[in-house]
């Protein structure tokens, strides 16, 4: 099993997310994460989908996604240089005697404390998946009360783009 990161341009229309998500569950593909938002062109959204599977499954995922009329273009960017980021919010137990320790961890990971209560704090961090996993692991001993991750969003490094301009007509493969 491998993890691949797909950058998918779709029509910004109601129901598109249902079509994409439904396709994954219906055909038994594993979504690791899915993040979606509109692009520089308001009629187009970009989905960053991290999917698990062998080469055969990934090929099928791409082909089946391509059959959806609302899917404009699919790029597997896994092997390209790209910036991948995830945002996480972690609510962690923080009695006064351990706050110093927590602050240190926050600093090491260049995270931020964005809310403080009497015996807990909310920490915000961004980074690639490994970093987010690492900060989660470091905070675990204190007792994580709640955590929410956005899933990865990604962009190709350099001047190259994975937008409509890159493909001209928008047809995939």
């Amino acid at each position, binding site marked *: 099993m491998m993890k691949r990161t797909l950058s998918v341009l779709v029509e910004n229309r*109601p*129901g598109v997310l249902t079509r994409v998500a*439904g396709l994954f569950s219906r055909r038994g593909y594993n979504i690791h994460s899915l993040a979606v938002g509109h692009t520089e062109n308001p009629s187009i959204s970009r989905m960053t989908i991290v999917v698990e599977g062998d080469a*055969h499954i990934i090929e099928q995922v791409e082909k089946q996604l391509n*059959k*959806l009329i609302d899917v*404009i273009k699919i790029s597997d960017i896994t092997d390209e240089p790209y910036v991948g980021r995830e945002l996480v919010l972690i609510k962690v137990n923080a009695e006064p005697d351990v706050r110093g320790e927590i602050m240190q961890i926050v600093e090491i990971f260049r995270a931020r404390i964005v809310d403080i209560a009497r015996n807990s704090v909310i920490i915000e961090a961004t980074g690639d998946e490994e970093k987010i996993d690492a900060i989660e692991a470091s905070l675990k001993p204190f007792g994580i009360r709640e955590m929410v991750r956005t899933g990865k969003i990604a962009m190709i490094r350099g001047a190259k783009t994975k937008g409509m301009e890159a493909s001209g007509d*928008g047809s995939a*493969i």
Partner: protein
Amino acid sequence: MVQQSKERTGSQVLMEVFQNEGVEIVFGYPGGAVLPLYHELAKTDIKHVLVRHEQSAVHAASGYARISGKTGVCFATSGPGATNLVTGIATAYMDSVPVVIFTGQVPTFMVGSDAFQETDITGITIPITKHNYLVNNVEELPRIAKEAFYIAKTGRPGPVLVDIPKDVALAPCKAPIPEKIELRGYKPTYKGHPGQVRALAKLIKEAERPLLFVGGGVVASGAEDLVFELAEKIQVPVATSLTGLGAFPENHPLSVGMVGLHGKPCANHAFTECDLLIGLGVRFDDRVTGAIEKFAPQAKIAHLDIDPAEIGKNLRVDLPLVGDISSVLKELLPLVETSRHDAWLKRIKELRNKYPLTYGPGGEVRPQWVIERLGEMTRGQAIITTDVGQHQMWAALFYGYTKSRTYISSCGLGTMGYGLPAAIGAGLASKDMQVWLITGDGSFQMNMPELATAMEQGLPLKILLFNNQSLAMVRQLQHFYYEKQYTAIEFTGNPDFVRLAECYGAEGLRITKKEDVLPVLSQAMKNNRLTLIECLISEEEMVYPMVPPGAGLNEMIMPD
């Protein structure tokens, strides 16, 4: 043709689109939410066929589309009308039949409120349509309606559903029908990659035992003549899938017939022995391949299809080739040399003699024999629609198809009840060919009320109903795989089908012994009314050959 952007209602827009698309018939069933569409339809000269159940509307539209080569059109109302369509839509989807379905929906301001007769039909049909739309704004309707027809018919065809809230259908619309379709996410590939086409020509040249495998994609593409030309030019055997029946004439010396779970023995052996298998518009589904690891073990596999997602889905493929079959074959034909494969054809002849298609034991009237006689009497010139069960397989194996678009059946979904409404659609599409429905007592009773529709349409359909008082295909499964424990397959209260036909004002005939067969068939062929023949057969008949689960195609169970 530039459209004036004068104001008209949503329903009127739809009628304009229908005129542009050349729609001749709408199959449907009315109800409150779809009345605005019916109101405008009545003002056109488009024929409406009122069915007895919405499922049948889609099946009939599918039969119409498969015979005419055009796109079938259906209407249904919201809620139960829409949900009744589901089996029909799924059936059309699995066989890649172009149908556009328009459903009425509750008004936009009620959508999402569990209003009376509201169902989320676009949500329900996402997995069984090529695409679907909920029209939220009437100004989008001209574009959507045109796109719906375009998507249904182009690329790999399939059903498209358009859900139109009642207020949208009634609302004034200024937007013109667009002249051009712009779908940045939908660009079917028609032309094959030249390098791949050359590679295929090379594979053909190198192969000693090539086999052409013809499927529904050949019919959809209208590539039958090109396949014929290719087969004769390189002198190789030709097999078909169930959907491909008739796309290559079965009386041609190169034909080995249908392959698969209940394929002809010669075809199944040919698959196991060939060294190059060229799949043309097929999808290698499990009923074709048998155990996938034993499928075509000696062969390189070339797969041509317009749908890239079919290639490599079920099977490792040595040469993928995406494109429209006609277009690809036109490129390919000049690249292949006229050749012969005498040793291979000799081997095919041996296989044909060694493994003939036989009936196995049975009762007094043999359904296989009846179908063979029907094939002879109609000289393969009738349209055969079928239901699902043993009779479907006998109809596939024993009729002898010589013309494309003459075997119309629910091949992919296996929907009992498809045959009668499909025959109605076929009858309306075909002016000159006789339409026969070959059905079973179980399947026929699923959509039997459509007899009335057929009568209303004045269609002289011929119905050959094999009555074994049972769901005999299921019985066959229980016979082989469930210790002959026959459960839930026996009918003890079937109607008298002859009198039933008479009730509808049709003619009813019965075959109870072998001597009845020829006179009854010829009487049915001659008379010009809807005629139902009830043919009594034994429930102990089996469909042979049969490839058991886990076996290769050559490991068929044959009659003793």
